[in-house]
């Protein structure tokens, strides 16, 4: 039987999506459901002096109106940060309470203060407009850089500082910098982004008063984690009386990791009114209230020798958490950021210092890449600048500082198990025709255009796990994953995974893995996820962990099935279990022609007997049935890496940047389905290029979101991109049996510095901030013209 792992298997999930049969949360309706509209703060920071619902309550069709007071009375808990961070001085981070409905104070535009539940959506909207809230508007803090100088937003949190965190050794860095021939320094901003999964968030909560069970359909990347948080912290319901279903979910990119106010409020309220409640975000609401991403202000320095050896690195970063710290809010700018600070390089001394601040903006949390794009942007912009200042070719300078052997023990945290960075660089250069660049530059010049080339070599720590490591660093949960492999008596297989697919194609890739492990045709394998009532507890999908953690749990559960199959075969064929081999779905007794198919074994396990004989096919003590569960907790993260090269052409008259060429050469270890990996790379690149050239979430000084719709927030469209040139090198991960590494975030991590390095190269080294909009580039072109004419 040909192996499916490694082949371009078409997706099992596609037909339903392509024929309109997908089932997203907003597609689900329950009999007698009501509709919720949230009343939200129009101010970034204000005290609620009075909230009057009397007029709204009389509005047609209103079922109930609930506010922060009822939340407090019922002791419903708030939203939480999932990771406790300790400051450099040893003190614990300081986080404010974040009630699901604000009672006394609102802290960002969109912070909900009440929910209106009515018989129809229109009636709920009309009534919501009649809720009268008297606000005392306070001065908002919105700037990341100046947040520590602003008014104190949350009582008891001085300077709006959540924590002041350090990773690394300041003294060693000081010594390294003293030895340097040159110090390259840079001030950069990692612009704030809005994830914008195409499916807006939604939830539908139902309550059964007889069984006292709440069922919550919601747009989540991790239904079990949502249930845990809602039970343990939200006090919505005991865990066994809360079922969370995340059906088809239309993209997440990190924005659907969090439990949101609406999930808690609708679940709690459904029980209160004993009716189902449906809420679907309008895109304008998503812009205001989905978590945002990035938003760092950084000063970084690289100590180098004249011949291009890196001696030391440091960064001082202010990270904006927004109004509240949410699930991955505090870890994103720390343990997902700092450990990647030195990139793919051997840098003997390094530290990363991060001050995380609260502002009156939407909460900032994990968005595709989460911390690693910010780290990669910092080091790769620095290295590019170093190449300009040292006059050393950008690819040569990088290669000079690549590690020469693996495992590669980095200065800060990680020990990278495998990789070959030089091979990746060489291949990327060849794919991009790096050596032919000068001719293309001249051609652009002859047409009055500026051309630039940019390189970035990235690595990332993903496949987030291992539990002992992450919990030691403050994570509130372990990050293992579960799988359950269940044979039916007639031989088909259902695989339950704790991972969640919201575009990642688990139904296909996980089935490929199980098909190979079990020798069962892929048509006979179904992958089930997204329902806490169906599968074993699982941790969900984020941080490129589905395959490297969840996929391995499936492999291990399959191996247990095979082990049991061997024991049963041995009994049935009167052989010793050690002599039974398993291959392509058959259990074969060594040196004989005796064998059983896995289907026969499943049948025997479920129907363990024969007519007229007191005889079981099962060895003594063996349980009937064929179902195994595995929990996998890897020994390390996975470390994909690669080199990307971009070329841009700029029209100096308008400042428009055209991305002419984009080459990505990645090492994701072993690839299960090349077609799907390509899709992941393309999507990541689009988001990364979007950050570099188009996307920006902008608040004004009063805390109003200026980019609150697709009229103002630039979502990349098809005509913004060239055809991407994608290639791979492959070194297998040594920390999991499949040899796989994560691939979902690489594009979003590598692309921003790659593109910006190209833009800045075209602009003669002038720094500009992301996104490189036409106006910024136009201004830089004018400066360039001025300085060129002076030079001439």
């Amino acid at each position, binding site marked *: 039987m040909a192996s499916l792992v490694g082949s371009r298997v078409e997706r099992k999930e596609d037909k339903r999506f392509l024929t309109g049969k997908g089932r997203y949360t907003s597609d689900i309706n329950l009999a007698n459901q009501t509709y919720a509209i949230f009343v939200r703060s129009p101010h970034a920071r204000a005290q609620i002096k009075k909230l009057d619902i009397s007029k709204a309550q009389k509005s047609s069709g209103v079922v109930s109106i609930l506010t922060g007071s009822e939340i407090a009375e019922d002791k419903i808990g708030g939203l939480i940060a999932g990771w406790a961070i300790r400051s450099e001085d040893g003190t614990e981070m300081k986080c404010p309470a974040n009630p699901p409905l604000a009672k006394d104070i609102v802290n960002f535009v969109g912070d909900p203060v009440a929910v209106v539940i009515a018989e129809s959506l*229109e009636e709920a909207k009309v009534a919501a407009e009649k809720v009268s809230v008297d606000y005392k508007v306070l001065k908002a803090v919105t700037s990341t850089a100046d947040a520590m100088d602003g008014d104190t937003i949350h009582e008891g949190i001085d300077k709006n500082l959540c924590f002041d965190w350090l990773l690394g050794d300041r003294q060693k860095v000081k010594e390294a910098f003293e030895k340097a021939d040159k110090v390259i320094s840079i001030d950069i901003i990692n612009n704030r982004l809005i994830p914008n999964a195409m499916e807006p968030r939604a939830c539908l909560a139902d309550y059964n008063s007889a069984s006292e069970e709440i069922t919550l359909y919601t747009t989540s990347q991790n239904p079990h984690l949502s249930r845990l948080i809602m039970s343990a912290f939200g006090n919505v319901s005991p865990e066994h009386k809360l079922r969370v279903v995340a059906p088809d979910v239309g993209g997440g990119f990190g924005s659907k990791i969090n439990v949101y106010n609406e999930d808690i409020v609708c679940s709690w309220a459904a029980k209160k009114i004993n009716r189902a409640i449906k809420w679907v975000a309008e895109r*304008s609401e998503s812009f205001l209230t989905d978590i945002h991403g990035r938003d760092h202000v950084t000063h970084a320095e690289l100590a180098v020798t004249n011949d291009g050896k890196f001696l030391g690195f440091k960064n001082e970063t202010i990270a904006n958490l927004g109004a509240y710290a949410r699930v991955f809010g505090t870890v994103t700018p720390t343990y997902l950021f700092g450990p990647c600070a030195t990139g793919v390089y051997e840098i003997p001394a390094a530290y990363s210092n991060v001050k995380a601040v609260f502002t009156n903006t939407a909460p900032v949390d994990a968005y595709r890449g989460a911390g690693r794009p910010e780290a990669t942007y910092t080091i790769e912009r620095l290295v590019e600048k170093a190449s300009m200042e040292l006059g050393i070719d950008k690819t040569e300078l990088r290669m000079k500082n690549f590690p020469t052997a693996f495992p590669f023990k980095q200065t800060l945290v990680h020990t990278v198990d495998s990789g070959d960075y030089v091979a990746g660089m060489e291949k990327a250069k060849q794919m991009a025709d790096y050596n032919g660049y000068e001719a293309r530059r001249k051609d652009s010049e002859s047409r009055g255009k500026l051309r630039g080339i940019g390189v970035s070599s990235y690595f990332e720590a993903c496949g987030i796990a291992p539990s002992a490591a992450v919990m030691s660093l403050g994570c509130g949960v372990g990050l293992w994953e579960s799988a359950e492999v269940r044979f039916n008596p007639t031989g088909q297989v259902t695989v339950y995974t704790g991972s969640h697919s919201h575009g990642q194609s688990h139904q296909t890739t996980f089935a490929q893995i199980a098909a190979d492990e079990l020798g069962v045709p892929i048509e006979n394998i179904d992958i089930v996820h997204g329902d806490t009532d169906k599968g074993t507890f699982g941790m969900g999908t984020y941080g490129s962990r589905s395959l490297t953690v969840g996929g391995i749990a499936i492999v291990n559960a399959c191996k247990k099935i095979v082990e049991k199959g061997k024991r049963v075969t041995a009994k049935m064929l009167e052989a010793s279990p050690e002599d039974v081999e398993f291959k392509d779905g058959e259990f074969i007794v060594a040196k004989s022609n005796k064998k059983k198919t896995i289907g026969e074994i499943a049948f025997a396990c479920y129907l363990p007997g024969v007519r007229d004989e007191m005889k079981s096919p099962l060895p003594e003590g063996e349980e009937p049935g064929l179902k195994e569960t595995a929990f996998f907790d890897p020994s390390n993260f996975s470390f994909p890496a690669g080199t990307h090269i971009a070329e841009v052409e700029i029209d100096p*008259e*308008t*400042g*428009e940047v055209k991305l002419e060429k984009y080459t990505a050469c990645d090492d994701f270890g072993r690839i299960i389905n090349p077609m799907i990996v390509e899709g992941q790379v393309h999507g990541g690149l689009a988001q990364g290029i979007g950050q570099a050239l*188009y996307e920006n979430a*902008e608040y004004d000084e009063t805390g109003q979101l*200026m*980019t609150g719709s*697709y*009229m*103002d*927030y*630039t*979502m990349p469209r098809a005509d*913004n991109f060239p055809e991407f040139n994608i290639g791979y090198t492959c070194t297998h991960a040594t920390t999991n049996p499949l040899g796989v590494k994560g691939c979902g975030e690489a594009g979003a991590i590598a692309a921003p510095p790659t593109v910006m390095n190209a833009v800045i190269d075209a602009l003669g080294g002038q720094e500009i901030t992301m996104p490189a*909009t*036409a*106006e910024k580039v*136009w*201004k830089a072109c004018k400066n360039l013209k001025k300085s060129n004419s002076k030079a001439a």
Partner: protein
Amino acid sequence: MKDFNYHSAKDSKEASKLSSSNSAFLAGGMTTIPSMKLGLASYKDLIDIKNIKKLSGIKVSGKSVTIGATTKHVEVANSKEVKKAIPSLANLAEGIGDPQVRNRGTIGGSVANNDPSADYPSACIALNATIHTNDRKIEASKFFKGMFETALKKGELIEAIEFQIPEKSSYQKHPNPASRYAVVGVYVAKHKKDINVAVTGAKPCVYNDRDLSKALSNSFSSSSIQNMELDSSEMNSDIHASAEYRASLVVTQAKKAVDAC
């Protein structure tokens, strides 16, 4: 979207009769419906004029192209007659919004709405258009009064727009990367007697840039406006483009337009 009464008018007379101080005419609805959905506008009555046959269609004479108010952008973009008589006008229509907007949006709707960054108003100015309403004929230069403001009276309905066929013309747009509306759009038209440089997006209302047209009247070449610097004091400034940048874009797009003429 707040409730309203929908009416489908058979002719202009009926449409006009149905209108009130709290009504709007509905053609493609490409602006009206999104504005109502977002709660930025609400009406008691929406009067659909799409079924008024007389209001749709393209007529070309020796001197002018007359386009019915409910003619869709896609029809203008694909019209062989328009392409022949005023190719730049077909190009402009081809560049409005996306295919779905072009399949639905109408010229009359765009002109009546007078969005400061819409494309068609610049064509009206550049091509010395006459706006035919159910009541009168209005010269384009007197039609566009200010931001979202026109000479139309309550209940007055655009029936057609008559464009003068120029000797040469071109429309060049620098789109907003998010909305794809014009940050600046410049429509240059050289007529026998005059040259118009109509600019959209740069100021609160479309306008004819006299400085540029004067320079081009002396010599109709991009080099004659190459180094012009426009006064940016009255230009729009927002998160997408500063006034200074818009002023520069007007010249850049005008040069491109002249070169493309």
